[in-house]
């Protein structure tokens, strides 16, 4: 069974939108409550490699795209999560599942102000120590 059908079967209703731009680029959305469940399935069960996550500040919400790679087929699966509360965005951290996500979650926290619940080491990664609190460089002007 290929990975796409396994994903659709196992995750089922968790997936709220599915978009296949081309055979190697798949974007799908899940609710933010389901992120841990989804990431655990992709990383542990399907054995996909976590490549990176991109935080995007859109007018409606803060968006996170978790990019997972299937290195056998060369496909990138991007899991899209919207966090509507832009004042104090929060989401479950995926770092407890595997340590490779630690740095990028720290980066998204300092750059976009997303709080990662359960992150073991949520401190600044790139910004200087004297950078003012609650100023997030990658947030767009309202």
């Amino acid at each position: 069974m290929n990975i796409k059908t396994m994903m659709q079967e196992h995750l089922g209703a968790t997936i709220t939108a599915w978009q296949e731009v081309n055979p190697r680029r798949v974007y799908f959305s899940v609710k933010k409550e389901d992120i841990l469940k989804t990431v655990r399935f992709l990383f542990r069960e399907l054995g996909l490699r976590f490549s990176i996550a991109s935080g995007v500040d859109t007018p409606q919400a803060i968006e996170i795209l978790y990019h997972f790679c299937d290195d056998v087929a060369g496909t990138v699966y991007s899991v899209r999560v919207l966090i509507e509360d832009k004042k104090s965005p929060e989401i479950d951290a995926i770092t407890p599942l595997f340590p490779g996500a630690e740095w990028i979650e720290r980066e998204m926290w300092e750059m976009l102000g997303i709080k990662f619940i359960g992150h073991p080491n949520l401190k600044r990664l790139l910004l200087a120590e004297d950078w003012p609190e609650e100023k997030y460089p990658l947030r767009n002007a309202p």
Partner: protein
Amino acid sequence: MSHRVIVPIGPYHPSLEEPEFFRLYVEGEKVVDLDIVIGYNHRGIEKLAEAKHYDQVAYLVERICGICSSSHPYAYVLAVEDLLGGELAVVPERALYIRTIIDELQRIHSHLLWLGLAGHFIGYNTVWMWAWKYREPVLDCFEMITGNRNNYAMFKIGGVRRDLKDEDIPVLKKAMDELTPVLGMFKGAVMDDPVIQMRLKKVGVLTKEQAIDWCVVGPTARASGVNIDIRRDEPYGALTLGKIDWNVIMEKDGDIFAKTVLRILEMYECISIIRQCLERIPKGEIDSNVKDIPPGEGIGRVEAPRGECIHYIKSDGTNRPVRHKIRAPSFMNVASNKVACVGGTISDAAITLAAVDPCYCCTERLAVIERPTSKKIMNGWDLIKLSQEKTERLKKELHK
């Protein structure tokens, strides 16, 4: 009772080529914990990219790193071409070949640079001098093709900026012919040398499970037995055409020796790819003059010398990207030092920390300027304030 001591390495240290700070927690000789502090080189390039138009971004990302300075523009143009329907749909065949030649030449020079540094870190300065000596002809090739030794400015959306001249091809072939025996020499100097084997085997081991959990990429992953290479998994450039024969080099031990051997063997493959490209390169256009970028999202991936380099572009149909996310391979690889270093002795720490071929300018992408007179460090806002004050002063002088 054991006594824990903190040994700081960095942010500026003679054995580090870039600013980073490692806090080694040591009990006796043994490293028990490691804290990595980065951010000394962060320039805010992702934010800058949102203020530039699509053509300018290629130049901007080229300045992320001087070693793998074609990987970032390549991954960026691939991300934009992904929006346009893929590299094959918009890039002429000749340009695909030129792109691959540049990409592989870069891998050779980067691996030679690392080999030299690795030799230097273990006190084998002969390898250092040799490696850097033989890296020069590769840089000369770059100068011949692109006009620059670094920051080649070759990549543009829809093609390449400069054509490969017919008279350059024999020169390139000759350079590749001369490089092959040199690699043989390095192979002998590393693989057959009992001292190097004793120094590097079973040192700084990253097991396969750790490599997967820390999501490492490139030679760091392949040396631990994780079979990933973007050139094979999602081919780009001339490799898409399926006419080029090459192999992914794999090792399984995960120690520094494996990483060294892997990089040396990989250079043979680079030479083979370049030779085949030079044989097969067709005549024709090198650019398809892309005018508009449609709205949407695109992801571009390139196997940089240190591993997968991934760029994500979000476009709203205007001439500037809305969001540009850059992830360099070292961002994943450097973090894994935490497991590779812990458990080893402090004398192994220097080479272990260097074994992933760290590249901090890539990882961090902020200019911090230290005034020579005082210790005060200025940030971007101070610099903007200074320039505004200067503008005001000049304005006043004009109106006098």
